[in-house]
């Protein structure tokens, strides 16, 4: 991430020498007022739509706030948290989120890794593989959900047709059964978001010094050995990043679930955000929804902190 500044370092060194206080003073003296004016527009939106709502969420999580009455409502203390932590559907939504993470992370990491290594070896037509693997990632969730719900049509859909072709009797439909609905969502998600990890790995592969492969080839290392002893270890950091990003993304999953199953059948695919939206918008219980949001927030922050620690440890190891 430092290549751009590095390229300009000589230029800046030259500029620094003649930079006498005389020349610096017009640069910094009158800066304070314009600086705040430059920050102001962004700061207003930042406070109004990021910090403000966060604080409001924290406050309302301690009150019986509701959409049907104005104002905060009565003070509830930790009752909303207590309720959420003792509700079976809160824990089942957390479990479904974990389930989704477990289903999606291994294929999203392994397939993206393999596709990236193979694509990187191809000398001509790379654009085609980039298109095939990456394009789904920029499609709207509505598009991918409509496509996959149709593919999973019970009995006559493409999935059922493929099952019949290999001799499996298609059942009631992947999304219709509580046992397999989350698998269906996971399959659609892997197809949709693999491209993101794919380009991250491709970028990681570019950073591996070419000399390593040349030296290995001179020493007679086979292709497999090169991948095993050079590529795999060099991509370790990317893999950690991909896994942590995947976990956070899984915690925030909403679109595919809402569009493909609406959390059903029953509550078998209910996840944290559909529970929050349901509690807030359907049950009109802002306070309880806020408590659930804060709990989710805490989990996400913990993972972000883990990522920082892992990143720092990796940087230290590299240095």
């Amino acid at each position, binding site marked *: *991430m430092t*290549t*751009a500044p590095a*390229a*300009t370092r000589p230029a800046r060194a*030259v*500029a620094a020498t003649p930079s006498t206080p005389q020349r610096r003073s017009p640069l*910094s003296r009158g800066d*304070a007022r*314009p*600086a705040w004016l*430059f*920050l102001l*527009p*962004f700061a207003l*939106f*930042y406070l109004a*739509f*990021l910090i*403000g*709502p966060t604080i409001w969420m924290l406050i309302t999580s301690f009150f019986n706030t509701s959409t049907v009455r104005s104002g905060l409502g009565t003070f509830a203390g930790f009752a909303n948290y207590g309720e959420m932590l003792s509700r079976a559907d809160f824990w089942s939504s957390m479990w479904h989120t974990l389930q989704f993470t477990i289903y999606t992370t291994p294929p999203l990491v392994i397939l993206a890794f393999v596709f990236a290594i*193979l*694509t*990187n*070896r*191809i000398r001509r037509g790379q654009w085609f593989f*980039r298109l*095939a693997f990456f394009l*789904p990632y920029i*499609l709207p*969730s509505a*598009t991918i959900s*409509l*496509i996959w719900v*149709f593919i999973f049509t019970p*009995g*006559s*859909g493409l999935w*059922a*047709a493929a099952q019949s072709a290999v001799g499996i009797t298609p059942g009631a439909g992947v999304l219709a059964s509580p046992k397999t609905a989350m698998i269906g969502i996971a399959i659609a998600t892997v*197809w949709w978001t*693999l491209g*993101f990890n794919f380009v991250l790995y491709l*970028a990681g592969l570019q950073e*591996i010094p*070419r000399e390593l492969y*040349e030296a290995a*080839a001179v020493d*007679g290392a086979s*292709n497999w050995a090169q991948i095993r002893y050079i590529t795999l270890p060099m991509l370790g950091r990317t893999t950690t990043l991909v896994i942590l*990003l995947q976990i956070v993304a899984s*915690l925030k999953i909403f*679109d595919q679930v809402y569009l493909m199953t609406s959390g059903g059948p029953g509550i078998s695919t209910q996840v944290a955000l559909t529970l*929050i*939206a349901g509690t*807030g*918008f359907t049950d009109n219980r802002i306070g309880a*929804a806020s408590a659930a949001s804060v709990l989710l*927030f805490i989990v*996400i922050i913990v993972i972000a902190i883990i990522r920082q620690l892992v990143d720092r440890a990796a940087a230290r190891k590299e240095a």
Partner: protein
Amino acid sequence: MAMTTTTRTRTKSPVSAAAPAASAGRIGASGRTFGIVSAIVLVVFAIIWLIPSVFALKTSLSENGTAALGATSILSTWNPTMHSYAALFQAGDIWNWYLASGVTSVVTAVLTVMFASMAAFALSRLQFRGKNIVFLLIILGIMIPTQILIVPIFQELGAVNLLNTYWSVIFPQVPAVIAVFIFKQFFDGIPRELEEAARIDGAGVWKVYWSVILPLSRPVIAAVTILTFVGVWNNLLLPLFVLANPNLMTIPVGLATVQGSFGQRYADIQAGAILAALPLIILYLIFQRQIVEGVTGSGLKG
């Protein structure tokens, strides 16, 4: 935007170029077999990955009657028709949805680029007290997942009577902290002597930002614009709850809301799915490099 430099070296990508060149004559035969096998594996997976899109396209070009009979019927009938697309455009809703998606995505992208680049300019170039605190606050902002704020943002928009307006989709998406980071990193790499020359010529702070820094920042402006556009176009959660008027809905929300009323008209549904994605597919084909680099860059930072 370090990706700009990395990608340029991609043509001489390490594995593909280095391995065959150095190994020629030594393990040539096994290297070639390996190359062929991996190419075949890759092509097979690429085809698997293309199937859902191609199947959706094929369905959208079928008659509703054919599509209702199922996958085998869709795949075995070759009689392409644009009937479903014509029907959607005639029904009219889709025009409103395109308008809503287009307006909200463009306006959000413009506001985000302006405000984030201004903030980044102050943080990168101007000296003022409290700079470190401001920077720390912005770093904190990157930790907040905006999705969990849907309920308080809904309440807030309701309190100021903005629900059911385009603004309700635009405003909450303007403060993209990652954009400030991307801009700041790019500005930090611009040599200071350029602006110092302008300052000596009497240029004010605004002039330096507008006439020196921004013209040098075209690649990063393009990247942030495109990524914001795609992000807003694809957002479902926010517009789903803040827009209730079908005429104001963005295209993903509109499709999600009416798909039930389509019943068995599967060809129409798939045509709608493709129309929702079409502008992004076109955008990808034009700005492939910027999109891939931007996504990679924000992924590595976010």
